[in-house]
């Protein structure tokens, strides 16, 4: 599928056609420069919380068998995580602009 149109499609060389699109202006500056730190933050926080979710998945499967013990342990686990979450939110790490 990838090859199809490069073989079948027409080839019309034209100046500027291969330049990156920037609303008709010629491109300025480097695309891969700095970008907002927020993206890094979101990425780091995602990894942190996603790891917790992975723990939760294993826990959820056996929850019915373990009952009360699993519940108490997960409450402790969630308190610790939510303390971290609360801190992150209050510090404004998730506010955009």
């Amino acid at each position, binding site marked *: 599928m990838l090859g199809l149109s490069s073989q079948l499609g027409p080839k019309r060389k034209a100046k500027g056609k291969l330049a990156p699109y920037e609303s008709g202006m010629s491109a300025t500056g480097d695309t891969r420069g700095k970008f907002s730190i927020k993206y890094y933050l979101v990425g780091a926080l995602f990894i942190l919380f996603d790891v917790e979710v992975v723990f939760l998945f294993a826990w959820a499967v056996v929850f019915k068998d373990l009952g009360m013990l699993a519940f108490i342990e997960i409450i402790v686990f969630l308190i610790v995580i939510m303390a971290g979450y609360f801190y992150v939110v*209050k510090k404004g790490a998730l506010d955009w602009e």
Partner: protein
Amino acid sequence: MDLSEVFKSTLLIGPEISLIVAGLIIIVLDPILKGPSKNNLFGIALLGLAVGFILNLERFGVAQTAFSGALSLDQFAAYFNLIFLIGAFLAIILSRDYLKNIDTYSNEFYALILFSTSGMMILSSSKEFMSLFLGFEIMSISVYILSAFNRKSVRSTEAGIKYLILGGFSSAILLYGIALLYGASGSVYLQEIVSKFDPSNPLFLAGGALVLVGFIFKIGAFPLHQWVPDVYEGAPMPVTAFMSVGVKAAAFAILLRVIFEGFNEIQLSIMPVLWIIAVFTMLVGNIAAIAQKSIKRMLAYSSIAHAGYALIGIVAAYGGDKLAVSSVIYYLFAYMLMNLGAFGVLTYLSRDGKECETFEDISGLWKKRPYIAVALGVFMFSLAGIPPTIGFFAKYRIFLSAVQADFYWLAIIGILASVISAYYYLRVLVYAFMKEDTATFPSFKIASSIVLVVLCIGTLFLGIFPFDSWSLALEAAGSVLVAFKGG
């Protein structure tokens, strides 16, 4: 594991929990509180440490295990916890003045110290590789952040990044070693791994070597010592004080635990390695320290050297010698007092957002701040191992155990190394007492000076009357050697 056993184990790790809870409270309260009340949160940290300290005292009585034998709450752990808790307590008080100096009132600092301390405590009592790694990481990650805490300083940030990357590598190596040992023995419990040890199986040897590498890195001993000066120099002063005593002691604690948990040929096979490491660590640390222009960097190299002295004790204890093991434990305790003191003086003298680092920064201290100069003298004498300080007694014990175990060369090299060290320690005092008073010094800081007084008295008093603390160390050594003798 049923509900009641979980509860029982949870109650048993009260000291660790009190630190973690205090840390969480700080983290939650910090964003909520506004205004000046925010600056008092370090009180919660001190409270948590005090509670932990009191709960920890109970452990001196009986040895117990928690979480199916994963944690061993014995006197050995209790003694090391004492080192961590006192170190953290004093470091927090010191850091309060320090943070004021660099205009950062970040309560995260205290929370991180608490988390790190709890990690050390878990580490010192773990008898199983999973909890060991858990404690190792809780301790390390907090310290990585702490060393980069002075965000305005390029060097502090550099130290943090350096420590993070190198520390990450060492953790990975440690984990890989653990995986190999687990693969070879089918267990993560130290005792079972040791009992199944088989020298002909390369997995055991490679795994053991990798685990050793991880510990050697954290100790900052010879082949893996290069990170120490850069990180110690760049990190904020109280953090350097804290990690040079806490992280080092924790790494030694787990090294002792791993080596002496059950008897096998391992002890005999790694002793030549440790012998070489100890010698080179002492030599490299001491010789490099001479050339330093910054006191902070000099103390960093000296901390490498001190790790070497403590390693002598481990080598001397290869046959399960209780005196030798307790001399290592005691040495770390003594090192906590005197090194915290030395960094405490430098913290005290830091002013106007800058750290007191070079020799010029303390020149003429005696004329302007005589008491501080005396304290500095006590700590430097102690680090050099000159009586009547605790440093002398601890060093004497180490060398004595080396001689008793017939490691004459090791003892001689150690003594020669400390003679070298006397040169650079006393050079500090030359600047402080004999040079012109060209430097300017900050005004009186009440909290820090109390810390210095406490440490000074501790260094001198325990140097003259060391016997109570020494017998505690003996008991601690006995408790870690229980399994060793049994096997």
